Each structure stands twice: as structure tokens, then as C-alpha cells.
């Protein structure tokens, strides 16, 4: 794990990169990294996230700034700008059931090629997908998801990069921290090694590549 400034962390991200962004309606989203993406005008990004939050919040800021060409999300209902850009043909929106999305990301980080889920069988989600019957029940084959970068929000990071999350800000963060080539963490608190006891480490340090230092 290396420490890095906010500016340098975002400067690493090329245009057209695929990013996983932690958070659920902006809760548990690393807002400073989002703001810096907007400031540096990183364009044509693909974002994998639970949702596009709302204007002015989390991924919603990337939508407003028109930095995205594609999103892979479970929900866009609270961000009318996402719908407008989608209808105008400026933004591709892939809607994925939330449990399928989280499990595809988990598979991507856990070395699995994909998952089998009954969610979506018999709906338009199943279109173009392989159906596999196991013990008489139909499942959809859903491929794993990975990204170039994961932008992760933690409540506590220690100096080595061990992470702990808080309450409902955990959501997709620990899954995404496993599923990207480069993992960048913004933490509310950066603490000496030992402050987080081993049982309370939710993401072990070796998977973290960069910890954004406080400005």
C-alpha cells in the first residue's frame, strides 16, 4: 500500500477507464475522489455502482458533469439527470438487479467466472442470457464484473491499509475492494496500526493499493 495525494490518485485514472464506486445513494461513497474526478474532468468513464444517487450527491456529480458514457447500476430512480441523459442517447445505462450486481462484483474479486441466480428468470433481465437448470430450478448465468479502479470509502484505515467500515456505509465497498486492478481508498479516519483489532478488519491491507492522505 502506498499513500497518495487526492490529486495524484485521480491523475492515475485515464479517460475511458472503468471504475467501481462504493456507496448506496451516496452513503459510503468517497466524495473527495468524486469531486476530484469532476475537477480534473476525466471523461468517457464507465462506472459500476449500486445507483447514480441524486444530483449533487456521489455518482450523481459525475452524471451532472457528463463524465460518464456508461453506468452499470441497479437503480437510477432518484436521479432525473441519469434518465434524461439515457433518453437523449448520451449515456448507456445497464440495469442489473441489486443482488445480482453485488454478487457479480464479489465473483470478480473472488476469482469466479460468474454466478448462477434465479433472480431475473422469466423477465427481460434474462434476455440473451444462458439459463442453466440445477435440481429442477432455472438459474441465469451472470458473468463476473471487474474494473480498472475501485474507489472505496472506509470509516477507518490503518497505516498499513487495513480497512473497517461503518454501519450502512459498508454496502458495496468491501466487495469492490477485491474486484479492481487498482484499489484507491479514502478513509474518514487514518489510524496507527493496532487500533483496528484483527477481528474488526473487514478488508485486509494487502488488497489496498493506495490510501488517499488527508489534504
Amino acid at each position: 500500500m502506498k499513500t497518495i495525494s487526492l490529486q495524484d490518485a485521480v491523475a492515475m485514472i485515464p479517460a475511458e477507464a472503468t471504475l467501481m464506486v462504493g456507496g448506496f445513494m451516496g452513503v459510503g461513497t468517497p466524495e473527495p475522489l468524486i469531486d476530484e474526478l469532476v475537477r480534473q474532468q476525466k471523461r468517457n468513464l464507465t462506472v459500476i455502482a449500486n445507483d447514480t444517487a441524486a444530483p449533487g450527491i456521489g455518482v450523481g456529480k459525475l452524471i451532472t458533469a457528463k463524465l460518464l458514457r456508461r453506468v452499470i447500476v441497479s437503480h437510477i430512480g432518484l436521479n432525473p439527470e441519469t434518465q434524461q441523459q439515457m433518453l437523449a442517447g448520451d449515456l448507456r445505462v445497464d440495469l442489473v438487479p441489486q443482488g445480482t450486481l453485488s454478487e457479480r462484483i464479489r465473483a470478480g474479486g473472488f476469482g469466479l467466472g460468474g454466478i448462477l441466480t434465479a433472480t431475473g428468470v422469466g423477465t427481460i433481465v434474462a434476455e440473451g442470457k444462458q439459463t442453466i437448470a440445477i435440481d429442477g430450478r432455472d438459474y441465469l448465468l451472470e458473468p463476473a464484473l471487474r474494473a480498472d479502479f475501485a474507489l472505496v470509502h472506509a470509516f477507518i484505515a490503518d497505516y498499513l491499509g487495513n480497512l473497517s467500515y461503518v454501519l450502512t456505509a459498508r454496502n458495496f465497498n468491501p466487495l469492490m475492494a477485491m474486484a479492481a486492478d487498482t484499489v484507491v481508498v479514502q478513509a474518514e479516519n487514518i489510524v496507527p496500526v493496532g487500533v483496528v483489532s484483527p477481528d474488526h478488519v473487514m478488508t485486509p491491507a494487502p488488497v489496498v493499493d493506495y490510501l488517499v492522505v488527508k489534504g
Partner: protein
Amino acid sequence: MLIASRIAQELRDGMLVNLGIGIPTLVANFVPKGIHVFFQSENGLIGTGPVPEPGMALPWLTDAGGKPVTALPGASTFDSAMSFGLIRGGHLDLTVLGGLQVDQRGRLANWMVPGRMVPGMGGAMDLVAGAKRVIVAMQHTAKGRPKIVRECSLPLTSNRPVDLVVTELAVIGFPGGRATLFEIQNGVTVEEVVAATEAELEIPPELSQSPIAKPEPGAGAMPSVGEAI
């Protein structure tokens, strides 16, 4: 609220329950006295409590709409894979969801109106596919048009039929894949239910009136059943 109080009668001690937004959320206000129910928010919380007092909200303790909540004693938090493992893995006893349409066999459409409203399915498809029991809470009609129809014109949420639909007029189930009138709400006639329903309804000869939950003393500030809707 008539619909929510009727659904609350389906709650049993120790159940893990996920409530959707809208009418389903109100079910939490009618939990029968003496039973304890675990409420899940799919963003990663079991033990969701009421809205915090002014000035006491924590930005990292929220419901599935991103709004601040509290956590009850005995609450637990977890990541999204665990949350949906609970939902799909046979651990969720009951989900209560809103509905746009339900077809004759009990299949639900509740996540999009093509070309008009495309919010995304969020957790709805997983909840219907995975919960042990699915109850739909909705108004019987929308702008006078039946919502319980022969075939859904809107995209389905799942091919798994729901267990119960509770409206302000009736309680409808789907035994043997056929829409069947289980109960009519007080003051409603069978003819009124049939007129407001497009699907063919099986009508058992002995049809009960909905048992109306008496408002529990101190059960919260919700209006009593008599003043509902």
C-alpha cells in the same frame, strides 16, 4: 392504514422482514403487541429503527432510500453480498412490496413503465425471487383502471408468483395459480371487488370479512383503521 394493518397480521414472532417503500413501510407501525420482528434494509442493516430525533441523524446509518434511520438494540450491519444472501438464500421470511400490476397467476410487475418511468429494479427482483413469502401492498386500481389484470402489460419483476395481494378492497391469493378472493375488507361487497378487478377471480362460497386490527394503545401516532384511506 387499512392495507398496512391487514398485512401486519401476517407477521410472526422472530420473522426477518423486508419492507419496500410506500405503503409497505407503514406495516412497521402495526406490529402486533408481544411479537418481535427483525426489519431488514437491503443496504445492509437488520434492526432498522425509526427516524432519528432532529439533530441526531448519522450520515452512515440510512435506509434503502438513503434517508437517516436509527438502529434498534440487537441490530446488525453487513455488506451488500450478505444482504442479498439473506434475501436469496431462504433467510428472509417475508417481503412486502408495492405493485403496478399483478396478473391472474400472481406474477408481479412493479419496476418500470417502458418509456415513462425507468427507475431500475433495485432489489425488487431479488426480493420476489428469494423471499419465503411475498405480499404485495397496493391500491386496487390506478385512476380507475384495475391493477389486478389477466396479463401484465408491464415488464414482470419475477416469474415467481406472489403469495398475497392486499388492497383497500380485498385480500387475494393465488392457490393453484388462480387469483382467488380470500377476504373482502369491511364495508366492501364482492361485486365491488369483481368490478374493480380485470383478472378472473375465484370466489369461494364462504367469504370472510377482513378481521380488523384494533389500534394498539401506544402503538404509535398512526391513524386508527377507521380513519384510513
